[in-house]
Each structure stands twice: as structure tokens, then as C-alpha cells.
């Protein structure tokens, strides 16, 4: 398959999914003192979508979420939900609910009272409250713990209560601020699956914040990758993995080899490697995934071929990551089937179409 590898291809993926837009984030910016925390963030969240804001700590992802929830105000920009301007409303008038990082369950109220809170303050009739709370607790399998105080249940259970407390209000958008980060690894994986299927079931749009790229890949319809307050790329997990827009995205999501070369009349040279690219002359940067490099078997294909010395092999279960050094010093990471490489000298090859041109990510504070 001949893949088009123009940088414009990645721009196309930033468009929202085909579903109608639910929330539109327009040019949101935020400063803390002199530092820009968010710069010109534009993002559309579709109805029923699972959108993840992925970024390292300090990238501004939680700040963006807090601006949408209404706990913080933006320096500039607007939030629109349909024809309703959201950013001018206080948090208690926004049809948005949040699941907090540490759950923020009210310690003086029982599980049941916590879940009923939103309906109580909205002064819904008692019979309706009872029914909806029971349904919500049923949905997160917490009915048996309804009368307990939050301190008497486990972290995973508190997590479910926090979800039920938010979902019972039938928000149009649910914000989740690293809700799984306090759980241990096994429970975390289990909750990822549960959360995803729950989202499908209720059909509410989820805006999920995490720093864990694997979690983002597993759960999201689309991922918005945030770096130092700016969006690097917004795309589906598959697109973001196979067509990273920038060097930063390529390195942040999974493993990659970043190849820096020079294009001269349609041919890129990168150390000992060279192949044809439809790019203008000048420096270019390519991302090549380790699984796209193979140990060479035949010599007839158009693949780029290079001989390398095996430096190190790291066992990863089904696959192994092998670090191999080419004659010119370039180190390539190669993913091989488990069992590893027997010989010290290997001939490696890759399809030039798998070397994705990426933009150099500018250095930011």
C-alpha cells in the first residue's frame, strides 16, 4: 500500500468526528502570572465521543479541564455548547459534571447521599431521586454499599461512586481528571475497560484527562495531545500512532526511531540510509516505528536496507525491542518476535512508506 506522507494528511485528522458537535473550545488561552499555561486551544468535542486530552504533567491538560468545568476562567477565548455560551456561566449552571482525580466524595454523606447530591440541590421529587440513585448505583455495581460512608469503601469503589454521582445528573459532557491514576495497575486496566463500556452504554460524551499514553490509546475515540499548553495533534489513536504530526507526538506515543535527514531532489539521505520522498529540498525528520523494521530476508523489494550490530535486546513478552547500531553510528530500535536475534550482525530493512515525515517540535518552556 502506497501511503501518502505529506504533512497535510495529519491536518485532516484534526477535524471532529461525523457526529454533531457538542462542545466547542474556541481559542482558549490562560496565563499564570507571566507564564502561558494554555495557548490558543481550539477543540471540538462531538456528541457521545470519548475524547482524551493526553499530556505530560505541566502540559496544561488539567487547567483546560478546569476551565471547561468552570473552576478557572480563561484569559481569552470562548466555550460554546450548542447555542449556549458556557464560559460566562458559573460551574453550578453548566450542564457538565466532573469526576475528580481524588474523587472528592463528601465524607459526611453516605454513598447513596453522595449520588443523590446533584438531584437534591436541583430539588427533584423524592420518588425520582430514589429511583435514579438506585439505577445509578446499580449501573456501577455499588448497590450493596449504598449506606456506607466513603471512608469505608476501597479506592476502586470510591471511583465508581464518583462516576455514579456525576452520571446520575445526566450531564451532556462528563469531565474526568485522571480518574484512574490513584488505582493500582491491575484495577486500573479493569476500570479502563469498564469505563469505556459504561461510556458506550450511557452515550454521554467523555472528556478524559490522562498522562498515560497507553490508557489514552485503549479508551479513546480521539486523542488530543497537549504539549506545553499547545495542541500538537488531535486524531484517532490509530492515526496518531501511524501518522504522528510532529516528532514530539511520535516519541510520546509508543516507541519510535527519529531519523533526521536532508532531502535533495526527491531523495532523502540519512547517514548510510537513503530513499525516495515526495518532499521539497531541505532538512526533514522521519518517524519510523520499531515494528516497521524487519530483519532482511530477500533482496528483491524496494525496501531500504542496512547492516547493523546488535547492542541490546529487551524482552517485552510477545515481542522484543532490539537496539542495533549501523556502521555510521545510527542506533535503530527494532521490534522482533520473541526469541530475539541469534546473530550479532543483522541486515535490517524497512519500507520507505513507513518512514513518516514529522515536523520538528519547536522547543518550548
Amino acid at each position, binding site marked *: 500500500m502506497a501511503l501518502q506522507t505529506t504533512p497535510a494528511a495529519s491536518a485532516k485528522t484534526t477535524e471532529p468526528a461525523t457526529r454533531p458537535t457538542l462542545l466547542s473550545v474556541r481559542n482558549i488561552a490562560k496565563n499564570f502570572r507571566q507564564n502561558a499555561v494554555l495557548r490558543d486551544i481550539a477543540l471540538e468535542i462531538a456528541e457521545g465521543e470519548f475524547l482524551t486530552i493526553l499530556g505530560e504533567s505541566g502540559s496544561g491538560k488539567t487547567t483546560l479541564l478546569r476551565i471547561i*468545568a*468552570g473552576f478557572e476562567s480563561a484569559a481569552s477565548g470562548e466555550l460554546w455548547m450548542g447555542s449556549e455560551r458556557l464560559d460566562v456561566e458559573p460551574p453550578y449552571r453548566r450542564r457538565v459534571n466532573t469526576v475528580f482525580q481524588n474523587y*472528592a466524595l463528601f465524607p459526611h454523606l453516605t454513598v447513596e447521599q453522595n449520588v443523590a*447530591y446533584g438531584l437534591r440541590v436541583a430539588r427533584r421529587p423524592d420518588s425520582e431521586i430514589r429511583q435514579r440513585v438506585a439505577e445509578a448505583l446499580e449501573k456501577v455495581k455499588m448497590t450493596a454499599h449504598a449506606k456506607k460512608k466513603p471512608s469505608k469503601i476501597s479506592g476502586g469503589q470510591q471511583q465508581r461512586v464518583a462516576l455514579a454521582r*456525576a452520571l446520575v445528573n445526566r450531564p451532556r459532557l462528563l469531565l474526568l481528571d485522571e480518574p484512574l491514576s490513584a488505582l493500582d495497575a491491575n484495577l486500573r486496566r479493569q476500570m479502563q475497560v469498564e469505563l469505556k463500556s459504561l461510556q458506550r452504554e450511557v452515550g454521554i460524551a467523555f472528556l478524559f484527562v490522562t498522562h498515560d499514553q497507553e490508557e489514552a490509546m485503549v479508551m479513546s475515540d480521539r486523542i488530543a495531545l497537549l504539549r506545553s499548553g499547545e495542541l500538537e495533534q488531535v486524531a484517532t489513536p490509530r492515526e496518531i500512532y501511524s501518522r504522528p504530526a510532529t516528532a514530539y507526538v511520535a516519541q510520546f506515543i509508543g516507541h519510535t526511531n527519529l531519523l533526521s535527514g536532508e532531502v535533495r531532489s526527491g531523495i532523502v539521505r540519512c547517514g548510510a540510509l537513503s530513499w525516495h520522498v515526495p518532499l521539497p529540498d531541505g532538512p526533514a525528520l522521519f518517524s519510523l516505528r520499531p515494528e516497521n523494521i524487519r530483519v532482511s530476508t530477500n533482496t528483491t523489494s524496494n525496501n531500504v536496507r542496512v547492516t547493523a550490530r546488535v547492542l541490546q535486546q529487551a524482552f517485552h513478552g510477545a515481542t522484543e525491542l532490539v537496539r542495533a547500531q549501523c556502521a555510521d553510528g545510527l542506533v535503530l530500535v527494532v521490534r522482533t518476535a520473541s526469541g530475539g536475534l541469534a546473530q550479532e550482525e543483522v541486515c535490517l530493512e524497512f519500507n520507505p512508506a513507513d518512514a513518516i515525515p514529522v515536523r520538528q517540535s519547536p522547543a518550548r518552556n
Partner: protein
Amino acid sequence: MFSRRYKAVVTVPPLAWVAFFLLLPYLLMFCYSFWSLSPAQTIVHSWELTNYKNLFRKSVYWETLLRSIWIAARVMLFSLLLGYPLAYFLSFYAGKRKDLLYQMVIIPLWVSYLVRAYAWKTILGSDGVLNTFLQYVHLTNRPLDFLLYSPFAVVLTLTHIYTPFTILPIYASLEHIPRNLVEASHDLGASPVQTFWKVIFPLSIPGVVAGATFAFVLSLGDFLAPMLLGGPSGIMISNIVVTLFGAAYDWPLGAAISLGLLVIVVSLLFASERLEKKWSFS
């Protein structure tokens, strides 16, 4: 982990201190409360309940006790009404000025109690600041006599003195409320007023109970404010105890009243501790 010698060195002195300066005096007081006074003003070591019976039989004692409780209750109420809003403001809205304002709450505690009581005397007296001012602006044409030497003066002074004692525990409990609970409440649609009554106030109850206990217990046993500013109508139970141990030389009856007061205070402290525990969730 530690040698026996070390353990003895650190535990014996405080235990001895408590035994000599706390338990022994209480024991003596307990004994005195059953003894009596002979007509010749000597202590008779007879074990009787006469003193306790007198406490109930003579109206001056239990009426004064009731008045003391009523004064202490009012001081408690006003301290809470004044202290809570200030503590709430300090904790939630003071921002950068928090530390400065906190210090300003504390500073009056460094000023001698006597000075503060005398200050009120000069303000409330018949030729005091307040009366002079009221006459000067022709709101009254003679000094208001209920201002000084009245239960009013005692309640006012004690409220002034003990309000910081209610602010501090309330402030501490407000500071302990995780701010994301307030955000969660807003997020779930609760207005600021609803959030206050449903989340903030319930979680500050341990502080309110501690503050109320401070104000009530400290006021109940106070004798300086009623002595300086109370007049005959503002006498409190401790003034009677002081008189009985002093001029009247009736130590047995004084001891009985003191023990009665002690029982009230200790049971209050127990009750408030249970209440605080019931409303603590961390």
C-alpha cells in the same frame, strides 16, 4: 528500643507532676467537700453531705450557678456568631492577607486579660467613653446605668476575650476541608449558599464544637470579669467560691461548689469530644 532507665527518666517526672499538682489538690478538695466548719471557725473532719445539701437548699448558690450557665451560654452563642463568619472569611476569601489577618486575631491574646477587662470598664462606665459620647450627641441626657456593673457588661467582656478562642478551632477545621469538595458541590449544581449549608458547615462542626466548648467552659469558671464589671447582679459562681475560700473561710462549702462545677465542666468536655468524633471523617 529504649532502656528502662531512659523510660523512667522521661515518664516519672510528668507523672509526679500530675500527681502532686493535680491529683493531690483534687483529692484534698474532695475530702474538704465532706467536712464542715465548727462555730469556732475550725474544720471538723466529719464525713457528711451537708455542704452538697446546702448547695441545693440555699437559693443564692444554685441561682448564681444558673446565672453563670446563662452568661456562659450567651458568651458561647455570641462568640460563635462573631467568630464563625470571621473564620470563614479568613479561610476562604482572605487570599494573600490570610496570615496578616490571622495574626490580628491572635494579637489580642497577648494583651493581659486585666487590661482588656479594665478597657471595657472605661468604655462602659457612667462617665466612660460610650456614655459621654451618647450624651454629647444628645441621644441620652443621663448616663445609661445598665452598661456597667451588669450581666450585660460581663457577657460583652467575656465575648470579647473568648471570641479568638472560638475563631481558631473553627478556622482550623475550615482549613482542613479539601477545596475540591467545594468544587465538586458547585459542579453538581449547588449554589454557593447550598454548598455552605450542605458541605462546608457540616464539615466544620468539629471546630464549632471545640470553639463553643472553649467559650462556654472558660466563661463558666471566670471570676475576674464579673468581679470588675458585673456588680451585684452580675455575680458568677466563681466569685462565690473565691469569697468562701477567702473572707468567709468556709473551705468545705467552697470545695463542694468547686467540685459541682468540675463535674459540669468534665461532663461537657466528654460530650463535646464525642460530638467532635461523630463529625470527624478523616
